[in-house]
């Protein structure tokens, strides 16, 4: 049984607009039988945090290409996929979107040409 995990999630570069414009989130992942991994974390974020247009954040079971993920200030592409971690409370995960036309702007009621 893995203990609950406290995480600091930070969204930036436009990605925060999918989370009510809030950049910093302190969350606690519930305890579960298997250790948490990124794949599960993404599902959890999608279910519990994502406010709008999940297709701009996740694609399949990973993040949408163009969104950079840093775990404790290191590029997650360095980690072998599916790696699980026993996190301490200091774990900080940062997501930064470098996609320009995400179809997200400050006036979500207005449809852009992208149709998002």
């Amino acid at each position: 049984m893995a203990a609950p995990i406290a995480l600091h999630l930070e969204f930036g570069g436009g990605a925060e607009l999918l989370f009510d414009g809030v950049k910093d989130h302190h969350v606690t992942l519930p305890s579960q039988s298997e250790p948490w991994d990124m794949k599960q974390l993404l599902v959890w974020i999608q279910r519990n945090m994502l406010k709008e247009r999940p297709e701009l954040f996740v694609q399949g079971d990973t993040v949408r290409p163009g969104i950079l993920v840093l775990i404790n200030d290191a590029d997650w592409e360095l980690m072998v996929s599916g790696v699980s971690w026993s996190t301490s409370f200091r774990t900080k995960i940062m997501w930064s979107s470098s996609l320009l036309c995400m179809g997200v702007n400050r006036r979500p009621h207005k449809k852009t040409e992208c149709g998002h």
Partner: protein
Amino acid sequence: MPVFCSSCENKRAVLKRPKTAHSLCKECFFWAFEEEVHHTIITARLFNRGETVGIGASGGKDSTVLAHVMKVLNERFDYGLKLLLLSVDEGITGYRDDSLETVKRNQQQYDLPLKIVSYEELYGWTMDAIVKQVGLKNNCTFCGVFRRQALDRGAMMLKVDKICTGHNADDIAETVLMNVLRGDIARLRRCTAISTASEGEGVIPRCKPLKYAYEKEIVLYAYFKKLDYFSTECIYSPNAYRGHARAFLKDLEAVRPSSIMDVIHSGENLSVREGVRMPVQGTCSRCGYISSQALCKACVLLEGLNRGLPRLGIGKHHRLHGKILAQQPLTEREERKLRAVDF
């Protein structure tokens, strides 16, 4: 298990480089990134000693990284350049006013002179006013055309020899794709060039020192260096076509990181069959700016705004240039076609 730097082998790696697949620590990454930009500058002979170079600065990640790296390299390798920041105020409340604050801080941080030129002073129209008149569909056309000229005009006021902009490898690959998809052979041919020669009176040569720098590395460089940049999207940015090209490229990059370089390489090595008609570059008979028509795009767009016919510069209306130049009124039928604003 931390991954170690594949270069120095004793520090923790912080990123995997998309271009080389090397895992590097912060220090080795900074060094590699800066050296590569230096290599680009030297190989393409972008600058000459003693030149004054205007850095197009928007406050965004690309131009902030460009300003920082140019300053570092100018000192490290003694380029002998006089650097300054050049910004355009498009007049977009809640976006450009905020990002210009970032540029003003960069001016202090990098100790470089700053010049801001505004659409309002140059054209008599802010983007906010333009959007009010033309709506959200073609506003990016106005903004893009006006910005290009505005940067040139600002550069002339400062007597700058060259302008450099923060276009990165991803931007250029997108542009190659877009030009292929639109069949724009003239632009396809030009868009991969790292620098433009002086195309005529009033046009200052431009170059792109970050042409081979991946966006991922630019974002991470800015992040790890803790550079002060502005990362909000333009509130009027429905540039859908580029958005699709970008999303497509990012998908390709996820499968094969070299895709971005490969698209640029393809663009660079395309040769256009002889006999393909190319527009002949001349000058605008109203403002003197380069143009392949009697009037340059900015003058036509401006005329449309001032006559209350915003669609004048959208699409091709070359036949009307004579009338505009002679300040003749348009027929009712011509006006009707240009007035309609569709949302």
